[in-house]
Structure formats: C-alpha cells, structure tokens
C-alpha cells in the first residue's frame, strides 16, 4: 500500500448520511439558530435562511463532495489534485481552521458533560431565581473542574476516532443521530404544550415585514445557513473521501442541507416556545434572554426555565444529553478533517495520528477552557475564517472547470444537477459570501470604532487579521514541505 493510502470506507449509505448529519447538527442549531430567528424577524428570518441553504450551502456541499470523492483524500491533497500543487496551501488553511475550531469546541463538549451531571445531581429542581447565573459563574470560576470536563470529553472523542470510520464514526452516528432527533422532538412537544407556548410559535413563525428589507437580517441568515450546514468547512469533503467512485453526491448533499435545516426548525420549536412561556415568570423579556448570547441562553436562562417545569430534572438531563450528542458528533467531523490530512501526508497509522492530534489539541484547548473570553474570541476569529475556506473551495472547483465538475458530480448520483449549479458556484455563492464577510468587518468597525483595529481586543478586525496572519505564516513556512509530499499516488 502506498503512502497515505487508506482502506477505510463507509459500510452503508445510511451510515454516511448519519455521520454527515451528526457532523452538521451541532450546537449552532441549538443555541444560535433559535436566537437569530427570534431576534431577526421570526418567519422573515426563515425566508433568507432557506434561500441561503438552497443557493449557497447545498451547491457548496456538492462542490466539496466532488473534490472529496474524486480525490479520495483530505483537503490538502484534494485541493492539490483539482487545483494543482500550488493550491495545496488552501487545503492546509482549511485544515488549520478546523484544528483551531476543534480546540475550543472540545471545551463546549466538556460544559455539556458537566451540565448532564448537574442534572443527575438534581441541581435544576432545587433552583431559586438567580441560581442559573450563579451556577454558571461558579463553574467558569473553577479551572480544575473545567479542565477535568475537557479531559473527559477528549477521552470519549479519542476513543471513537481511534476505532476509525466504520467501527467508530459510522457506528456511533447511526446510534446517536436518531437519538438526538428523538430527544429534540420530545423536548419540542414538551415546550409546545406549556401554557403560553403559542406566543412563542407566533414569535417564531409570524414574519415581521420590516426585517425582510433589513440587510442585517439577510446577512445573519446567510451566515447561519453556512455555519449550520457546515458548507465550506471541509468536513463534507473529508467524509466524501471515504466514498466509492460511483457513490452519490447530489442527493446526499441535499439531504445534509435540508436535514440540518429540519433539525434547526425542531430546535426552534423547542427553545422559542419555552422562552415565550417561561421568561415572564423569571421577570425578564424574551428579547433579553436572546440577547444574553449563546451561553447565556443555554446555560443560564434555559436552566432557570427548566426549574419551573414539572419533572425539571428529567427535562434538564434530556436537553443537555441532546446538547452533548450534538457537540460530540460535530467534533468527530471536525477532527476527521485534521486526521485525514495527516494520514494523507505522512501515511501514519490511524491510532498514531489520532493520539497525536488529540494530545496537541487538548493542550490548545486549555486557554479556551480557562477563559470564556478567549473561547469567544476564537469562535469569532475562526468562525469567520470558515468563510474564507468556503471561497477557497469555490476557487478549486472553478479551476477544475465547472462543466467537468458537474459531470463528475452527476456520475453515480441519484439526482442530476443542471447548469444552474455552475452559475451558483461561479457567481452567486462566492459573491454572497464576500458580501457576508465584508459586512461582518464593516459592522464590527461601526460597533467598535475606537478598538476595531486593535489586535489585543477580543472582538474586532485587528484580532482577526493578526491570528489569520499567524496561521498564514505557518502555512507559508511549511508550503514547500507539503508540496514535496504531493501528489500522493493511488495504490
């Protein structure tokens, strides 16, 4: 077997779909989508969100599928095969971004684990008003506990990843994804049967016309569709590299995009009616709850709300179990982007690569575990870097030639894509992403005009430019060494 040659493959198509959905149904569906939908016009938010999924995310997932299935490699060798050796560094950027996201995502998995334990300890049922914030603050103020939870999360993830695609990721996803969806349906039914929940439905579904003409709402919806469906991350590319040459791309990509959106809507039906029904009993408005941010919504306010429900302990455990599964299966996908590239380049055994990556990333996770401000900074910096990764994927597919790429995609696929896909990946989707990226920068400068360019500030353009430049410099330094290892010959 040649260097980097991998025998691993998905056993069943349903296993591939479950793994893809597992990777995409993440914490963003639970803590960001409902907040954004509630803050940006309810039904009015859903319209641009779905347009974003159809016009940007699904075409981009198809593009990733073409590169992954066609090259049977990760982002670096895949980009090199379709875009030439000189473009391999774009794949290294994609891998680097996923690696840095993995570092702080692991911390969130640890938080979810601790809150399941709080549930079993009966903490939510003994809450008095204000306990949500107190518990969260005391948890964040205990570094040993945070690092312990982080370590437990890493042990679980490493154990699954070591088992490989077939016995690890596929098996776990086939079990966990249906369980996650089932849990969220149960929680949504519970939320919808609360007194006052109908107000939440109105909040979620009724379009507020003013938001339809508000550029901010459109840009938030497009950003959410990209982050949530995982388009452009490189995960779909990596998972597709374990497909056979005549396996489907188009239908699987569409299932991933629509499946992720379906789950986000279930999460909306779980969170928004709960907040509408129970926020008034806590003396806060629903808007205040949503404006408290991702962690504020989940770890402070929702826990307070669970305490007001009958069977609060059970509800709390089920919710944080769902949150944990969402984070876990997403982490597997993000980690696999890094693992696949290392195996491609060095030809090492999976066990060695997994242990090495897990060890290094655990150390990289520590600053985020200790400081929530650092974690938020990393989320801000590398979340936006994913938009650059998406643009790089378009560049590679355009270099390949969109007519040929479309032929590649239609070969073996159960549904065929037309010429419209070529227009979307050449013009509509990349231009939309450039607008979204430019808007994020502009909005930040308008919000923080004095500190925006200061690289030591946690939120700003300066910190982004500094950290992106560091990653870029590392990649440039390693560019020659990476190119020397390419192309990786087929066995």
């Amino acid at each position, binding site marked *: 077997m040649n260097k980097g040659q991998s025998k691993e493959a998905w056993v069943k198509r349903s296993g591939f779909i479950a793994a893809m959905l597992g990777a995409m149904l993440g914490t963003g569906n639970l803590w960001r989508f409902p907040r954004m939908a509630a803050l940006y016009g309810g039904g009015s938010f*859903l319209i641009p969100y779905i347009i974003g999924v159809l016009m940007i995310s699904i075409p981009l997932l198809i593009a990733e599928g073409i590169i992954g299935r066609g090259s049977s490699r990760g982002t670096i060798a895949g980009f090199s095969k379709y875009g030439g050796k000189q473009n391999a560094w774009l794949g290294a950027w994609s891998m680097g971004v996923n690696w840095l996201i993995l570092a702080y995502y692991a911390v969130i998995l640890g938080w979810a684990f601790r809150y399941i334990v709080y549930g079993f300890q009966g903490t939510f049922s003994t809450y008095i008003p204000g306990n949500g914030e107190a518990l969260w603050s005391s948890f964040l103020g205990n570094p040993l506990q945070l690092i312990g939870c982080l370590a437990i999360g890493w042990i679980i993830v490493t154990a699954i990843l070591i088992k490989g695609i077939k016995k690890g990721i596929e098996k776990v996803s086939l079990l966990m994804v249906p369980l996650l969806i089932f849990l969220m349906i149960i929680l949504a039914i519970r939320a919808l049967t609360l007194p006052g929940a109908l107000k939440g439905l109105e909040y979620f579904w*009724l379009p507020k016309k003013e938001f339809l003409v508000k550029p901010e709402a459109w840009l938030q919806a497009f950003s959410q569709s990209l982050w949530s469906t995982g388009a452009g991350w490189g995960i779909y590319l990596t998972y597709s590299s374990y497909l056979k040459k005549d396996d489907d791309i188009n239908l*699987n990509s569409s299932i991933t995009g629509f499946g992720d*959106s379906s789950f986000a809507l279930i999460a909306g039906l779980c969170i928004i009616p709960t907040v509408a029904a129970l926020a008034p009993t806590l003396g806060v408005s629903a808007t205040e709850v949503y404006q408290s941010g991702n962690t504020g919504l989940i770890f402070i306010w929702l826990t307070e709300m669970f305490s007001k429900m009958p069977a609060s302990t059970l509800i709390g455990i089920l919710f944080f179990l769902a949150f944990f599964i969402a984070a876990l299966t997403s982490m597997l996908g993000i980690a696999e982007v890094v693992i696949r590239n290392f195996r491609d380049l060095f030809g090492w055994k999976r066990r060695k690569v997994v242990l090495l990556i897990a060890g290094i990333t655990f150390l990289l996770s520590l600053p985020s575990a200790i400081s929530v401000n650092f974690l938020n900074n990393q989320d801000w910096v590398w979340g936006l870097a994913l938009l650059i990764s998406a643009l790089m994927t378009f560049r590679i597919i355009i270099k390949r030639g969109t007519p040929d790429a479309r032929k590649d995609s239609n070969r073996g696929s159960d549904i065929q894509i037309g010429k419209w896909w070529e227009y979307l990946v050449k013009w509509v989707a990349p231009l939309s992403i450039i607008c979204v990226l430019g808007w994020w920068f502009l909005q930040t400068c308008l919000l923080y005009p004095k500190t925006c360019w200061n690289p030591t500030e946690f939120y700003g353009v300066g910190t982004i430019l500094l950290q992106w430049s560091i990653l870029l410099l590392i990649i440039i330094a390693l560019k020659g060494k990476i190119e020397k290892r390419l192309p990786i010959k087929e066995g």
Partner: protein
Amino acid sequence: MGFGILVGLGITLFVWGVTLYLLKLALEAEKKKKFS
C-alpha cells in the same frame, strides 16, 4: 394569531417534507443497489 403565521408554518412543513422525501429516495436507492 393571524394568517401570517402560515408563512413560518409553510416553510417548516416544506423543509421537513423535502427532507423526508430525499431520505426516502436515498433509502430506495440503497435497497436497489443491494439487490442489483
């Protein structure tokens, strides 16, 4: 609650319906492949 709510309800049912339809297509294709 006005008729406006039908917009959100419609989008939700559309997305769920398309997802289930696509999943059905994939499962049928998987079965066909197995028996061909």
